[in-house]
């Protein structure tokens, strides 16, 4: 078994359900959903108008929303960790960049699209928090958060950096809303991952960051350790610009790579926080991948996207936080929105909160357009 040297010592989030990890986890256990109709989407003429957006943070310039969300969440993570080392790095995953800037530019508003580029979030965090370590931005579609966290962990494990604030951010994007709507990937009613009647996803917005720190340094300063990052397994389907390989084999390779790189066996994985978008193809492919990797004894599976929507580049970072909460509380949150599982999906789907007294390892799965697959393994402290 691989002993991870990458400790999680701080957590910060901004999500539609709560701006605290405990608040988010409680809301999930209560089966609350932030998905609702939005007047501005109705007025704009969208035929699908449900999304999960952060209402608690409204005093933002529309063109700075992603920067604001990411700075708030990163600051919360640093504060929670109780350190602010100037040598700390910033690793950010994002999918669309500051979409509102591109939308304004398309309407011939005099605006500099440079300010909307994805790396601006990491630059804003670096500047706001006065961090001088390495800065990276990962544009890995809907798996970006996992990539940022996994890469940061790899860098710390290799001794290249001592601490990194890593996670993901995605402000609500009308471009993405329209894109998914026109791709017929958007639910007509409610997002119901893995359910019989599922017909798509719904967008969210969020920012979530972890303070990752070398275990030696965390132990030396007697920091609270929420968990450890063990490994990030990756693969690519190389199959289609948007659809996953129908048999889920690419996703399965990412899961198997994560297990192998962590020097674990499949029996060690106690719970899977699934990508579970609620789309027909992706949920089915993911269920096949889980069955393929874990064969007859699949771990319990949860998707949280029926509760907080799909926040694209931030989604897997938010889900990593939920993994950490589940590991620390020894409870599995339910798949909000799903009551009846698709009979063609053979998974132990968690539909009500479940005690998990012996939970040790959680696997956080995320996939993106282009068949970009990731599986992050997180260990209980």
């Amino acid at each position, binding site marked *: 078994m691989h002993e991870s040297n990458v400790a999680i010592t701080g957590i910060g989030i901004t999500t539609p359900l709560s701006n605290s990890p405990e608040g988010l986890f409680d809301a999930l256990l209560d089966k609350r959903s932030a998905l609702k109709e939005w007047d501005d989407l109705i007025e704009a003429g969208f035929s699908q108008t449900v999304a999960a957006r952060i209402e608690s943070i409204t005093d933002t310039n529309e063109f700075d929303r992603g920067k604001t969300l990411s700075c708030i969440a990163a600051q919360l993570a640093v504060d929670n960790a109780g350190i602010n080392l100037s040598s700390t790095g910033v690793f950010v995953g994002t999918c*669309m960049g500051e979409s509102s800037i591109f939308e304004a530019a398309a309407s011939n508003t005099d605006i500099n699209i440079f300010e909307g580029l994805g790396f601006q979030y990491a630059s804003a965090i670096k500047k706001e928090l006065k961090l001088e370590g390495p800065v990276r931005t990962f544009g890995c579609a809907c798996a970006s958060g996992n990539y940022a966290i996994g890469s940061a962990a790899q860098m710390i494990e290799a001794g290249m950096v001592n601490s990194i604030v890593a996670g993901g951010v995605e402000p609500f994007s009308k471009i993405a809303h329209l894109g998914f709507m026109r791709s017929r990937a958007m639910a007509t009613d409610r997002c119901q991952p893995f359910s019989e009647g599922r017909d798509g996803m719904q967008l969210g917005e969020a920012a979530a960051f972890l303070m990752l720190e070398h275990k030696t340094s965390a132990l030396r300063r007697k920091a609270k350790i929420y968990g450890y990052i063990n490994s990030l397994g990756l693969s690519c389907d190389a199959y289609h610009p948007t659809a996953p390989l129908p048999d889920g084999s690419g996703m399965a390779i990412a899961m198997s790579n994560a297990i192998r790189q962590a020097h674990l066996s499949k029996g060690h994985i106690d719970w899977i926080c699934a990508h579970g978008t609620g789309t027909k193809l992706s949920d089915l492919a993911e269920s096949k991948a889980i069955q393929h990797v874990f064969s007859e004894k699949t771990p319990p599976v949860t998707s949280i996207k029926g509760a907080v929507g799909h926040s694209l580049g931030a989604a897997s970072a938010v889900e990593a936080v939920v993994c950490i909460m589940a590991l620390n509380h020894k409870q599995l949150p339910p798949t909000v929105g799903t009551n009846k599982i698709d009979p063609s999906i053979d998974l132990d789907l968690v539909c009500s909160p479940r005690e998990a007294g012996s939970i040790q390892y959680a696997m956080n799965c995320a996939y993106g357009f*282009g068949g970009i697959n990731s599986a992050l393994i997180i260990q209980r402290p």
Partner: protein
Amino acid sequence: MTVYIQDIYLTKPLPDRQNSRDLFVWLKEIIPASIKEEIDSDLCGLYIATKDFGAASSVQFWRDALTTGFAFANPREFPVTLSSYLASMIAMHLSIKGINQTFVGECTVYNDAFIQAILDLQSKKIKECLIFKIPALQTNVDKSGQNIIITHLILGKNINHKTLPSIDFCSKNNQTDNFKTIDEALYALKETGFKGGEYYIQTDISKDICIQLF
């Protein structure tokens, strides 16, 4: 195990129009045929370094949607708005099924991709990789150097490594003649025709990068 630079290619810039059709045509033209024959697709990684890919297509996608109405927005163009689109298209074209990672950043973004690639090679997650530097588009961002650089790295076993430059992490030496970016070093290497020498590239982590050929 040592990582070697198998080859460096300079290819033509992105097409002016960033749509799925033009990018597909462009892609088929720019990938040297030899790459497809050489790589082991299951154990090959793909790393893309870009400043702004997806920005111009995001603007265009929304502009078209405003013109045609949302009901007629072209769903095929939506994936092109993502910075990861090129990585997924190149992976499909070359059947690259290993790590697929897009880095977004400013002038040192190619360094970011190289650092990650070397770490992944040294930890044997992959045994070879292609690293693409995509220059900024002709938007109002910038117009610096438009050629695309493709670097092919391999892990050193079963190769005639005497003829290839090695690339590795090294201690910080803070010499003034160090390269600031790996692109500059690769241009220099390419110009010398892979003749002997050492090239040091400054990084933002605790080690620098060294390219050596003896």
